[in-house]
């Protein structure tokens, strides 16, 4: 089987409703899309369009009101809380806008965290973490604590944490939002490289410039996929929407 064509993430008519009655908010409405291995998909849309909700669904941090979310062919609803946690440890890597490193842990410990949580022996986990840090180009920062790193360095550590081990799905929520544009580009280059190496990536962003790194762009508005492009350059798509 061609790994590039295998589906890693599949959202099938996913609806997510927050609250009830008068306070009801439909964050996502019957959203469907697939991400295959080796593919980087950008999810775009204005504030409140449901981008982040989509990402929390994909990582099993939140459950859909209706519809199914499958990761590597497994319906997340069939896994318990613990099963979804295991899936996040082994299959999914998150990258957030505000880095979300744990300040009490050093860089290498932060990267080793998912493996350690999965019960991998600390020595092995740290070795893998050092390798991951090497891949993102900051092996020399392994023993630093997050408070003593720049934003770009912290985000590299976060990406290393997202890719450490054999994870095949990287979920990035505005990973460059807190960075200057030059550093942001480097981070996206890293993400692109990981996907080219076989991972499936979802990149939530509101900057068209960043969407250009993606293979496809899914455009959300008010919780609905309003467009999905395969090969069109994102800029063209955005122009046509205005």
């Amino acid at each position, binding site marked *: 089987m061609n790994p590039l064509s295998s589906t890693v993430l599949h959202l099938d008519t996913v609806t997510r409703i927050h609250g009830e009655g008068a306070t009801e908010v439909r964050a996502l409405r019957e959203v469907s899309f697939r991400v295959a291995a080796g593919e980087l998909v950008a999810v775009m849309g204005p504030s409140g369009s449901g981008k982040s909700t989509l990402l*929390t669904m994909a*990582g099993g*941090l*939140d459950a859909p009101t209706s519809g199914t979310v499958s990761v590597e062919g497994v319906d997340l609803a069939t896994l318990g*809380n*613990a099963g979804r*946690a*295991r*899936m*996040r*440890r*082994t299959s*999914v*890597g*998150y990258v*957030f806008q*505000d880095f*979300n*490193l*744990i*300040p*009490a*842990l050093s860089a290498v*410990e932060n990267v080793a*965290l*998912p493996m*350690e*949580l*999965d019960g991998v022996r*600390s020595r092995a986990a740290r070795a893998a973490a050092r390798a991951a840090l090497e891949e993102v180009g900051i092996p020399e920062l392994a023993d630093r604590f997050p*408070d003593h790193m720049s934003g770009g360095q912290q985000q590299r550590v976060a990406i290393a*944490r997202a890719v450490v081990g054999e994870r095949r799905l990287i979920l990035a*929520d505005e990973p460059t939002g807190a960075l200057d544009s030059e550093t942001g580009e480097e981070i996206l280059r890293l993400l692109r490289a990981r996907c080219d190496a076989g991972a499936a990536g979802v990149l939530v962003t509101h900057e068209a410039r960043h969407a250009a790194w993606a293979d496809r762009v899914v455009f959300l508005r008010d919780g609905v996929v309003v467009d999905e492009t395969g090969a069109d350059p994102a800029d063209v798509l955005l122009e046509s929407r205005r």
Partner: protein
Amino acid sequence: MSSWRLAIRLARRDALRARGRSILVLVMIALPVLAVTAADVVIQTQEVTGVEALDRRLGTADAQVTVPAEGRPMVQRFDPMDGATTVGGKPDPPTEAEISAALGGARLVEERVGSVSYATDKGIGYVEVTEVDLRDPVADGLFELTSGRLPETAGEVVVNDAVLDSGYALGDTLDLGRQNPAPTIVGIADSASLRTAPTAAGPIGSLGLDARNGASPGWLAEGGPVSWDAVEALNTMGALVLSRAVIEDPPPASEIPEELNWDSGDDSMVAAVALIVVMALLEVVLLAGPAFAVTARRQARSLALMSATGGTPAQSRRVVLAGGLVLGGAAAVLGVVLGIGAGWLLLPVVQRWSSHWFGPFDVPWPHVAGIAMFGLASAVLAAVVPAWIAARQDVVAVLAGRRADRPPSVRSPILGVVLLGIGVAMAAYGAAAGSGSGEFLIAGSAIVAVLGMILVVPVVVAGVARAAGRLPLSTRYAARDAARHRTRTVPAIAAVAATVAGVVTLGIGLSSDEAENEGTYTPSLAMGQAAVTGYDLRPAAWDELARVVDRELPGATVTPMTGVGGEDWVDLQEPGGSAPLLDEMSVGFGSSMLVGRSVPDLVPGIAAADRERAAAVLADGGVVAFTDHDVAGDEIELMAGERGTTIRVPAAYVRFQDDTYPTLAAVASPEAVERLGVDVGTVAVAVAGADVSTEQEQDVTEAVAAVNPNAGFYVERGYQAEENTRIVQFVLAALGAILMLGGTLTATFLALSDARPDLATLSAVGASPRRRRSIAASYALVVGFVGALLGAAVGFIPGIAITYPLTAPAYTDTGPYLDVPWALIVGLVVGLPLLTAAIVGLCTRARLPMVARLD
């Protein structure tokens, strides 16, 4: 002032918004305030003060006059019950007319107060009696008639329910024994002051009170206020006066006679109270501290914004301090109000246990104000350090979203070590000073050492974090996080440490005291032996006693012990010597000289070889003399008390073994005693060969007492550890556990709420919900373990020092005894932190926040 108004408004809003934290602080401060207020209300109410008790003691009279010492001149304090004494002089009792004249012609109503024995359905009891004409209006208020009528003649009395409960009914004759009046019970009346004790009252002569049973002549006086001058005048006539006017409006304290103006020990009392207040304040401050630290951190961003827009550090400080002011004020008011309510609710319960009637409900407002101030002060003090840190925070770092405390300062640990050194020095000095001033120095050293320790805690926490690299994830996270957030960790650890230090100090003191008791215990009999002893018993009584013991203890060997008795005694003297053979002894077996062919087995502290030597001399017609020093001779001179006979006989000098207190001066052979011509008889009964159980001992004791109240039974069981020590140690450990749990729990849950973003991250990278539990438990373990270890170490300083004044009193050459209760300490340092960690782990919700955003 206006800047305070802004700060208080901010603090009030913040307190309302962060409800959980506010309630935590409220409870932590209001609870001690509530408990102390309630206790104070109960104590003040049950305590019948001078003025409150006047009606109970005086009825409606202006004064009560008694002539206690047959007319010897006296001096008294304002209330003669507080102190009075004779000041020499010849007895010349004043007459009723003289007393009345001294009181300006007051009307006198005779009153006698005392206690007499009476027959009950179980035997003989004692009844508190008052002889006074109860129909006289002046006696109104002394007794309250509940049924029947007041006595009218000297053959009638009223009693209370306690007397009726012992086998009497209205209309019965009160049996006061032969040769005493036998009054009829015509009414039931409660005494105004005594609640549960049997009481009786009737006219003069009705209850047989006179000088024989210790009642002194006395009168209730009615005829206007009695001044202090009049009291002093009556004192010189030999009378004591309780004057309503003097008690209600006492003269200056300088008027108290010099003989009675003793130092009432107030200084040491004040010192003790001050120590307790300081320790309690410290504990509350430390327990509430973490909550304010977290509050200050939550406010960090707004404070940084305030600074960025031109606020001064003082204003930032005020905002945090105002939090303490608002919450402390609320907690103080709440605690006081609830405390007064709780005291009111408790009164009926406490009254049921008390033998006296309580006074009117009494809220001691000055005390209550003090207690409320204590609550307010502890909250403000708890906010001081967070406020100081908030005022110095790095505005840029806070606005950039970095969350850690500044690195620990170097100066404060040095100051801490210096304080610890001062603590050790004070403790050593206190130990050297011995009992008296020593205890206070040592207690002071405890406070200094604990304060020093608090300053050292940040360094220790940082050290633990540095060493945590190899620990499992949760513990590593907890240790590092604890070090990063020292403002909330340090007070929590210090609270645990202060508690443990106190428990360890008391524990060492207690078990060392116990060790001293054991070490200085001297057996009265040889181990496992028993004896019946008594005084003033006839030979027939001894025979009966031996029979009783034989009956109660089948299988025991019961041997009457003979000794020199009656009016006779024998002096012993080493020929040519002048020093007494024994410096001190106490007669253990009814006579200092036993008579027989051997040293009885039950005499303790005699070596087997000495017993053989003794038996040989006794077979020879000689005497065994006990000494406390080596005597070489083999003869002794015996002098028979008043008869004056002196003889010289062969002797064996025997030393008691070192740990034995001499209970016997000599054992003489029958021949020697016969030559002296002194009376010999049974002086005790030895009981051997029976393994006497405690129940049997109780039975024999009762049987022996029934034969003759002057006889007693004793079984030597060696040193018996006091049950109390165990219980007190257990209570100490439990108290330590509760405080440790409180400190650890608050710190842990505050840490968890602080760690929300970290927990969200952990969740996002796949931590299972259980992880929150293990992190909480690890945090509790770090706080509990570090605190307990530091506390135990610090507790040794005053703990060891206190054993000197406690177990090595100046007038003895024993001690000091030091016994460290290792089980207690290991339990505190290892067991308790594990237990609290387990409890915290179980109490923590296993749920991770799912929102991966910073709050």
